[in-house]
Each structure stands twice: as structure tokens, then as C-alpha cells.
């Protein structure tokens, strides 16, 4: 069991990025977040974890939230005191009917397109904490917390 991360840590720097939910933007999204986080001198492993978690969250927006359409994906990255990184990935898509079920390993609603159902599991394991807030028809906000080494 991981220690819970303090969401109220003071913000020292932040950025926002808005992208249309086109799959070609997946690489851009993770690269932009990684470039911003690089100012904290993370290890290569920490940076790889962040890129992978962001890629999963953004892919979920493209594949699930905006399945038949293109909508806005908003990324908010906050660098907080104590070398804590908070990354929010927000969409205004279809929402998730059952968040608990969606977070179960191997659960997918898109098996025919070879979705592995491991997206949330990857996010959980590559970060220190994952929060998912969702409302049907309104959208989903995924918050990733990653504490860097001292």
C-alpha cells in the first residue's frame, strides 16, 4: 500500500496544455509534460513512468471519452513543494459509468480493438496516487500524483 500524497502542497510552477483528441497528439502530450517536469531533474526512470502514465490517460480520452468524435483534452501540470508533481488530464466526453470497475486490471469496453484494459493499472503503478472523478455525459478528470526522489 502506497502512502497517500498530500494534494494541498504549495504550487511552485504550473502549465496548461489543451489538445484536440487526435491520436497523433499522444506523443506530443507526454513529451510536453515530460519536458516541463524535467526542470525538477527527475531520474530517467521517473520521467519514463510519468510519460507512460500521461500516455495512458490521454489515450483513454481519445479511445473512450470521445469515442466517435473529437473533443478537447486539457492537461494541467503542477510542480509542488516537496518535489511533488500533480498532473490532471480532463475531458468533457461521455464519462465512466462505473469507475471502480473501469479501474480493475484487464477490464475493457473495447476488446475488439485490442485494448488491453491495463491503462488505469499502469497509471496506478507508475505513479504514487491516482484519482478518477467522472460524471456520465459530463466528462472525466484523472489526477496523477508522482513524488520524485529527494
Amino acid at each position, binding site marked *: 500500500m502506497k502512502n497517500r500524497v498530500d494534494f494541498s502542497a504549495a504550487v511552485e510552477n504550473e502549465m496548461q496544455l489543451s489538445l484536440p483528441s487526435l*491520436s497523433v497528439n*499522444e*506523443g506530443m502530450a507526454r513529451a510536453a509534460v515530460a519536458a516541463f517536469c524535467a526542470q525538477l531533474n527527475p531520474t530517467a526512470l521517473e520521467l519514463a513512468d510519468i510519460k*507512460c502514465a500521461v500516455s*495512458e490517460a490521454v489515450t483513454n480520452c481519445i479511445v473512450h471519452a470521445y469515442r466517435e468524435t473529437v473533443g478537447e483534452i486539457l492537461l494541467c501540470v503542477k510542480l509542488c513543494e516537496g518535489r511533488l508533481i500533480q498532473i490532471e488530464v480532463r475531458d468533457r466526453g461521455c464519462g465512466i459509468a462505473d469507475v471502480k470497475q473501469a479501474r480493475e486490471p484487464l477490464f475493457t469496453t473495447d476488446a475488439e480493438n*485490442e485494448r*488491453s484494459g*491495463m491503462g488505469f*493499472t499502469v497509471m496506478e503503478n507508475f505513479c504514487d496516487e491516482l484519482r478518477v472523478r467522472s460524471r456520465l455525459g459530463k466528462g472525466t478528470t484523472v489526477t496523477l500524483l508522482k513524488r520524485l526522489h529527494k
Partner: protein
Amino acid sequence: MIRSGGQVVYETKGDTLVIRVGGEIDHHSAVAVRAGIDEQILEARPGRVLLELSRVDFMDSSGLGLIMGRFALVSKYGGKFAVLDPSPAVLKILRLAGMDRMITVLKTKDKKKGNEHL
């Protein structure tokens, strides 16, 4: 014989098709990679398919779907499938998903597992 398509190189050695994938595997890139690989596999129906991933420097869970799908495709016609020389990034996510226990993972130098001819 060696053929190339984007970040993917295909090499036939007897009844073995070696597919070498490099770069980044995400949901976006997986679509084209998958289509190219399936075309090669279905055309030749090789007895063994090795997916070589040593030059993959990024892979998210879309890569897991790509690997599982090719494993299923090859198994369906009775062929053998293995992942060859996964990079650290690939191995980490394979282990997280437990796929290293479901699919054969080989290393080029691992002669005990019978791939010394590679």
C-alpha cells in the same frame, strides 16, 4: 530476406519471421504497426514469429494489446510466437501485466531456450 516498413523491419530465416520494431509504441503508432505485421504474417504463415523489441524506447498498454493480438493471430493457425530481447521499457510493462508468464520471452544469447540460430 529483409524488408522494411517505417519503424518495422521484417526478416525471414527459414520458417521463422523476425519482426523488429523500434521507436515508440502507443495507441497511435500501434494501428499502422499492427496492420503491417498482420499483412506479413498472414501472407507467409510462418511456423515461428519472433517480435524483437530491443529498440523500443517507449511502450504503453497499447503495446500489450499489440503483442497479445499477434500472439493470438499466430496461435490461431498453429504457429509459435515469442517476444525477443524486450527493452527495459517493454519488460517493465510486460511484467506489470503478467504477460511475461503468458507469452514466451527470449533473449538472443539464451541458448538454453533453443534460439541459438538467431
